[in-house]
């Protein structure tokens, strides 16, 4: 039991911080101003929760280093695990959480919503995300999905005085709930087929399929996959993304675009390629890689074309997030166990590695945009970015760098993400996906236009007068936590962009743990034997 708990330490650290914040916050006096929403007394919850997230990240790194040699260690009667994959993504979402916490305090005060619950909710969401990537059964996965989603719904609608924010939260909630229901529906079919909810049980059932199983399997997998496609905002399930991204508080937009996307893809990998490996996977009537590849191409093209026409930086980044979901879906093709990749020891690094690059660029971009949220305004329109390079050089530089990274231009991490992805997808089945890759690079050129347009606004256009009739210049937020978050993410983009070896190695090992079905079953059997022994 202690061993089981030890594996989940990172999650508990975050959970405890969240609970403490929630319980202690009502006892804090609301001094300083008559409006509690503008109070500075909640400010320290940001660094406090960020420290918890970073602590959890450190523990995850420690577990990675000292952890058992086998690929995964299963705990709690096979319902949750600590594998290289889960630890990688736990660390990633902890990073997302830390950045969200660091960038939020001043922003919340400026926007008049400095409530302590905000920080608790972010930490709850981080806990949910971590649990979701650690889940080894459909049940755990659903529960953690809901913990994450409910927290994020509330956070999106957190600025309750703003109609846009509430509408965004509502839209996201309704679409998200339908997705959860669809997930549950699919999970029910898989449960009916295997008599259990854990991935090990599903794998076992698929080894000795009975007649009719193929139908239930296909139905279940299709429904579960559709739910994930909603969460990653793939076309045609992307409609919620622009509104939710634009309406949400800026730090939350960054947190969502980096964190939610990352865990959705990680869980997707785990379910469709982890749980469904084995001879039973041949029963699937859906040609999953082909479906994914086609969806990918449509998603990236639609995302990029719509992003071209957006004027607000936040809304533009929402469509860009859709486009990146498209690139990642194509990367999923290479992670498929059925794919034959010549000359690769452990393929499948593309998705985690790309997600790392995307998450860092996205966090950096939204951290920089957070600095624009002054006095209840969101200065993310094109005219409001003019001259940002002069008036807030750091935010300008970080935003520009993250755009370059999202466009995939060296020497940034975004380039290597794209390179590794192209490399793996091109290797599948002797270049069968070459047309998709060509469409991908053409899409990159299209996307470069709207990413560069942001840098044009920052550096190259003359600064006009304010268009909103007020005097003086726009004022931006300057704060230590924000500065640190921007600096650290930007430095990571550049350093990992020049020397990506370590990051690729880590991503490769994390991906390898999805693919080793034999090892999984072996470990699962050992764990069951241990359980039996204790009884």
């Amino acid at each position, binding site marked *: 039991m202690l061993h089981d708990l030890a594996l989940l330490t990172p999650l508990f650290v975050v959970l405890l911080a969240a609970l403490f914040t929630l319980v202690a916050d009502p006892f804090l006096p609301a001094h300083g101003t008559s409006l509690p929403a503008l109070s500075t007394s909640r400010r320290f919850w940001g660094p406090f929760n960020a420290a918890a997230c970073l602590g959890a990240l450190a523990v995850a790194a420690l577990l990675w280093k000292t952890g058992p040699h086998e690929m995964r260690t299963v705990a709690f009667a096979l319902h949750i695990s600590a594998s290289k994959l889960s630890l990688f993504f736990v660390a990633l979402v902890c990073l997302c959480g830390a950045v969200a916490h660091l960038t939020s305090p001043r922003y919340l005060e400026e926007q008049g919503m400095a409530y302590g619950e905000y920080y608790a909710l972010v930490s709850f969401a981080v806990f949910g995300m971590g649990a979701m990537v650690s889940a080894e059964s459909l049940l755990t996965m659903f529960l953690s999905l809901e913990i994450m989603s409910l927290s994020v719904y509330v956070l999106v609608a957190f600025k309750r005085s703003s109609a846009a924010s509430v509408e965004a939260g509502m839209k996201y909630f309704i679409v998200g709930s339908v997705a959860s229901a669809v997930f549950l529906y699919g999970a029910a079919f898989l449960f009916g087929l295997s008599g259990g909810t854990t991935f090990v049980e599903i794998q076992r059932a698929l080894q000795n399929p009975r007649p009719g199983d193929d139908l239930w399997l296909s139905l279940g997998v299709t429904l579960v996959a559709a739910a994930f496609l909603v969460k990653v905002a793939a076309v045609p399930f992307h409609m919620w993304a622009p509104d939710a991204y634009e309406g949400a508080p800026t730090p939350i937009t960054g947190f969502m675009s980096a964190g939610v996307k990352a865990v959705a893809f990680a869980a997707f990998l785990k379910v469709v390629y982890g749980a469904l490996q084995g001879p039973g996977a041949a029963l699937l009537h859906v040609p999953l890689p082909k479906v994914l590849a086609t969806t990918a191409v449509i998603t990236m093209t639609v995302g990029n074309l719509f992003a071209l026409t957006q004027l607000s930086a936040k809304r533009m980044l929402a469509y860009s997030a859709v486009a990146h979901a498209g690139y990642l879906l194509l990367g999923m093709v290479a992670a498929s166990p059925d794919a034959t990749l010549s000359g690769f020891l452990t393929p499948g690094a593309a998705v985690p590695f790309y997600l790392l690059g995307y998450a860092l660029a996205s966090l950096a971009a939204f951290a920089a945009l957070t600095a624009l949220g002054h006095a209840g305004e969101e200065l993310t329109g094109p005219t409001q970015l003019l001259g940002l390079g002069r008036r807030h050089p750091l935010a300008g530089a970080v935003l520009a760098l993250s755009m370059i990274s999202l466009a995939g231009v060296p020497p940034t991490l975004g*380039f290597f993400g794209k390179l590794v992805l192209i490399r793996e997808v091109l290797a599948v089945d002797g*270049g069968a996906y070459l047309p998709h890759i060509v469409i991908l690079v053409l899409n990159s050129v299209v996307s470069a236009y709207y990413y*560069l347009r942001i840098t*044009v606004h920052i*550096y190259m*256009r003359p600064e006009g007068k304010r268009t909103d009739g007020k005097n003086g210049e726009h004022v931006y937020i300057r704060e230590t936590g924000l500065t640190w978050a921007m600096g650290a993410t930007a430095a990571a983009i550049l350093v990992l962009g020049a020397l990506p*070896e370590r990051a690729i190695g880590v991503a490769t090992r994390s991906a390898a743990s999805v693919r080793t079905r034999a090892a999984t079953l072996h470990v699962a059997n050992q764990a069951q034997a241990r359980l039996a022994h204790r009884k």
Partner: protein
Amino acid sequence: MDTALTQAWLQLDPSHGFPLLTALVLMPTLFALIGVTIPGSLQWAHKALSLVGSLVTFGLGMVVWALTDTARAGLQLTDDSSWIPSIGARWTLAIDGLSLPYVLLTVFLTPLVFVGAWSAIDKKWKEFAIALLVLETGMLGSLVAVDLLAFYVFWEVMLVPMYLIIGIWGGRDKVYATLKFFLYTMFGSLLMLVAIVWMYLHAGNTFQLGAWTQLDLTETQQHWLFAAFALAFLIKVPVFPFHTWLPDAHTEAPTPGSVILAGVLLKLGTYGLLRFAIPLFPAALGWASPVLLALAVIGIVYGAMMAYVQTDVKRLVAYSSVSHLGFVMLGIVAFNEEALQGAILQGVNHGLSTGALFLLVGFLYERRHTREIADFGGIAKRMPVFAAFFVFVTMSSIALPLTNGFVGEFLIFAGAFKEGVRSSMAAGEGTSWRTMMLVGTGIATSGIVLGAVYMLSVVRRVFFGPMTNPDNEGLHDLTGRERLLMGALCVFIVWIGVAPGRWLGMSEATVHAMVQPLRPAILQVRAPADFRREQLLNADARAE
């Protein structure tokens, strides 16, 4: 088809003891990093630092020159270490007679550009210095990288600083120009990236150029891969009809940007063809020769005609680049020793003379804030030294004997005509290529005349005749700094023009070794009769 050729000229020397090339490539970035830490208000510090940085790099370039044995072919001064082992990318840098001239051109032009920028760049000096230093790293890295991933990274690293230089310090339509430059170039590069990754997978997870030349590829594969590589390089050169970004970029760029763009960046296109696209897919060059020949000739004539009708001096010089690079392309398509030597040298020449022209136009612009030809006239009276330099550089640009331009263009035409005439001695089948080559080169010669027409006409209209515009009365002549800059460039214009031996000798051995395996492979496809004849001649030569 058996495409694996033994290419001795791409043989990599064992690793050199001291990582000299790495130092050369990263030195500018090191100074850029130092520059980041100095506040931007200390403009003089950034001027001094960037000059010192580029001069140190120049010094390292001289050391590289001294240590490179140009008498033999093969990639030398190798730095080879592991970079990203998990995907098989290596940090492999090496130099030979093909890249050395351009490396020297780069390290020579960069300090001059910095000195020229003292007056041309009036704001954000810190950012400018950092951008240009990073750009120098990109240029030098592209020239010495022989691991294709390292090459690609350097190739793309050049993009962002140039984009910023045009976009921040440029003229009125700078945003349009810089976006066009970036997107155009990126479009070509990304298709090349797909080809690079395809080759990498095909070669068994290696990006090493040497290993790639050992691959057996089918004809169709070669054609597609060559197309992907060549498109990236042809856009960079730029060859008609991919040139439309160039006049805009040049016109809007600040003077230092134009000098670097014309002086070095365009050469990287022709360098890339010679280093990568042609050695990897020689038969595909044979296949594409007619098209490339036609495009080169159209570029020469069309560029010259467009230059003639421009009213803006800078735009005129930009179109003259399209025409001059057409000559270089003609030499590359001919692919014999004379033509290639000429093409390589003409690349350097164009960097010197067009770089000088852009600097001169920049001097004029700083004084009058206009570049319209009609605004000037008779200014030789007020600016005699300026006029003298301009006329001198014009002579180099229109390839007058005793200037560098003559040597380069003469060799290109000698080679190109030889390709047509020599072949026509072999009677019978396959005369179409020879005819094309002869006719094409014939038309191309008109480019020399047209070059004289537009350049001399601009000299006449700007410098001579009556001074009609009273605004020009107050013009002052070149300052000491400006004279020094022009003097440095003119020394080399004369040196190469009068005694080209040393400069041609730099690439002679490499070109010889390059032509030996590649020319038969190209001829085999584009003129089989000539191929058989040359085989016989070579056999005879060996028998003697």
